[in-house]
């Protein structure tokens, strides 16, 4: 059982470039989330989805976009990367309504230079 898988694990982007962070889960969870974690700060919610075709903004959505075409996949798109987007990104999933036990991926460490 793979759980939540994120790719890539590391990436360096130049300012203005775009990229997609991939996230897939094999637990048939309806809820999926994207967080960013900055040094010394708590996790901040970027976007979340309560099911295929349904997404909503979290606390820090600016500069990001998401889509949810299947239950399994929840990619995060960065458009026109900026140094402020340098962070570690975590994808998570959970079953049921509300934030029940969530399973996190291993993270993607992104540096924008």
């Amino acid at each position: 059982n793979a759980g939540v898988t994120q790719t890539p694990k590391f990436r360096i982007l130049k300012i203005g470039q775009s990229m997609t962070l991939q996230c897939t889960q094999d637990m048939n969870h309806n809820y999926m989330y994207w967080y960013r974690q900055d040094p010394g700060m708590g996790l901040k919610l970027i976007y979340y989805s309560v099911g295929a075709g349904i997404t909503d903004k979290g606390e820090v959505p600016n500069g990001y976009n998401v889509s949810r075409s299947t239950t399994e996949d929840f990619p995060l798109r960065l458009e026109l990367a900026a140094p402020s987007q340098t962070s570690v990104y975590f994808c998570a999933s959970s079953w049921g309504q509300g934030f029940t036990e969530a399973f996190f991926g291993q993270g993607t460490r992104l540096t924008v230079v």
Partner: protein
Amino acid sequence: EDQVTQSPEALRLQEGESSSLNCSYTVSGLRGLFWYRQDPGKGPEFLFTLYSAGEEKEKERLKATLTKKESFLHITAPKPEDSATYLCAVHLQGGSEKLVFGKGTKLTVNP
């Protein structure tokens, strides 16, 4: 403003030396409080969920408790493998999926 504060920021213990981590919160309405463990370079790993004041949960050397204003994570006779950052998060009422995380407590247990 909804806030979650964890203390201390860092804690060093000797193996076998019991202690507690604190998570205090000021939120408009609490649906649940979560404890996670995070190892370096890894994603958070779920430990406990607490829903109401007076509730307690245990797992091996860890015990989580909840009051109306704070939660404690008690670590009894810790081992070096308990070294990690422990994160507290609260799930707010109001229909939102917003989860507010604290900054974490970095625990180091020396042999």
